[in-house]
């Protein structure tokens, strides 16, 4: 194995160029003022201070709130589905998991456009509702439409890790629990749920991360006025052109996410030990 080690070098160089340098640039921009030359930059906290304005705080609150709701819905719907899939024969499970991932093969933009079509005022759903004389319901450009988009896009990221941890579980443990007097409900909470925790934690972290930082879906399904932190960063870079502020927000987001993940892991540990 050892003699192949140098093969990793090109990869290291690429990750340096593509990951580490941009990250470094973001930190650099976040702490400097707009407009200075690369060589005569001046250090500042201004970009971070600006973030404390109410408008921006509201944006981050809303983002986290939406991320939280999306994650909760994905968990509530995804866990039963993953559980259900894991009860099939191995062959059937492969097919079902494939079905779960199929939407991911299609470009996210296309999928989101499809949702726009379904949800719009004269879209398919409203036409059906109209037939039933329930009148058109305005669904586009609301929290609802954004949530639908987020949940549908990120559901596989919840289902797959949970399914994996359920599959890895030794089925004889369930029999052991029943043998010791646990009925089906007790067996689920005392064994299945506990042993699927690693998958749940993975799924929750992944979906939360994706949902909090998403900007395409809220933009398309929430409309131009819909501001999440991802949109805010995007607009700072693309339309406003304030790279320094944009970088600062990115850093703040990254730090908050890191902290929340640590908290998640801590809670998981505590639950395991209890």
């Amino acid at each position, binding site marked *: 194995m050892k003699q192949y080690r140098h093969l990793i070098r090109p990869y290291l160089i690429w990750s340096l160029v593509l990951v580490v340098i941009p990250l470094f640039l973001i930190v650099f921009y976040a702490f400097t003022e707009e407009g200075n030359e690369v060589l005569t930059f001046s250090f500042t906290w201004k970009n971070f201070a600006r973030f404390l304005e109410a408008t921006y705080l509201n944006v981050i609150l809303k983002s986290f709130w939406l991320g939280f709701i999306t994650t909760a819905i994905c968990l509530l719907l995804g866990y039963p589905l993953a559980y259900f899939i894991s009860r099939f024969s191995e062959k059937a499970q492969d097919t079902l998991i494939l079905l779960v991932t199929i939407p991911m093969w299609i470009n996210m933009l296309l999928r989101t456009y499809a949702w726009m079509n379904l949800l719009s005022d004269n879209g398919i759903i409203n036409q059906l509702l109209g037939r039933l004389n329930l009148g058109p319901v305005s669904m586009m450009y609301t929290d609802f439409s954004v949530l639908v988009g987020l949940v549908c896009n990120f559901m596989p990221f919840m289902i797959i890790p949970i399914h994996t941890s359920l599959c890895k579980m*030794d089925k*004889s*443990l369930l*029999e*052991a*629990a*029943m*043998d*010791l*007097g*646990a*009925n089906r409900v*007790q067996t689920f909470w*005392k*064994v299945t749920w*506990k*042993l699927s925790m690693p998958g749940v934690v993975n799924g929750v972290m992944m979906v939360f991360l994706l949902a909090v930082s998403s900007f395409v879906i809220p933009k398309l399904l929430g409309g131009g006025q819909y501001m999440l932190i991802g949109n805010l960063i995007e607009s700072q870079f693309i339309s406003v052109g304030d790279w320094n502020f944009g970088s600062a927000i990115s850093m703040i987001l990254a730090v908050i996410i890191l902290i929340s993940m640590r908290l998640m892991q801590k809670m998981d540990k505590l639950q*395991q030990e209890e």
Partner: protein
Amino acid sequence: MKNKLIELRNLTKNFDDQQVLKGISLDIYENEFLTLLGPSGCGKTTTLRIIAGFEEPSDGQVLFNGIEISKVPPYKREVNTVFQKYALFPHLNVADNIAFGLNLKKVEKSVISQKVERMLKMVGLSGFENRDVTLLSGGQQQRVAIARALVNEPKVLLLDEPLGALDAKIRKQMQLELKKIQREVGITFVYVTHDQEEALSMSDAVVVMNNGEIQQIGTPTDIYNEPENRFVASFIGESNIIEGHMIRDYLVEFDDFQFECVDKGFEDNEEVEVVLRPEDLDIVEPEHAKITGVVRDITFKGVHYEIMIETEKRMYNVHTTDYAPVGKKIGLLFGPEDIHVMCKMGAY
């Protein structure tokens, strides 16, 4: 007279279109150490799983204290199982694994820790309360599994090849301990194994199974000394199995000679099979015996020699402490009580 605890009545079980149990009828008594013994795939585990409630019989009845229970779910049965691969809960430590059943029954915490401690002491794991079960050795995991089942004070403990994954030395030691534990707690053990030595040394009663059918039920000595058919005779220990026929009660003919024996109850001239255990045969000078032959092979086995003797009709396997060189002509000597006559059965 001991009380009948479990009665299996004509159990059958089909998986898909394969019949794996073909009418198992068996009585299990209180405080008994009963072993299901048979080759791989004969339906031992299936029988045990039906008693535990993990499988429903296709037909037949399971009676517990005289009450039909084949539709009662496992968690309502007064039976606990020690699984072959232990099936300890990896997310719980040793004490919590053992306390699992008691916690479900909402037993008081102080009582639980007392009982857990007593169990750990019995299986020789005192002080292991807070260990991670996934880091224990196979033998230790096995003890935890036994403690986890016994702490619930079941009427019956089911054990499915509990020692299968252990190496020979620990196996021997655990056999003795299991037997000791069974005497100590005084409950019924139903034990599954395909190791005949294990079955004979531990059990009060042995049930020999093959192909989903019971071949013989009896004490270890009965099973060894009085095998009822060719399968039992060849599965338990080594034996010479010879076709012959009963002339009349107490007289059997095989290899063209007539021998006195202790068996009766066969029809006159009935075709039978005769078992001669290798260790019951002695070698003597040819003129002192009816059956004579030539030594073809001799192997030293520690306590005894294993000698292959070719006679006019067949090869005999003899275990004896006497030595005879290859090529020597000798006679085979055995007494009436060494001859075991069995009903003839289909080809094996």
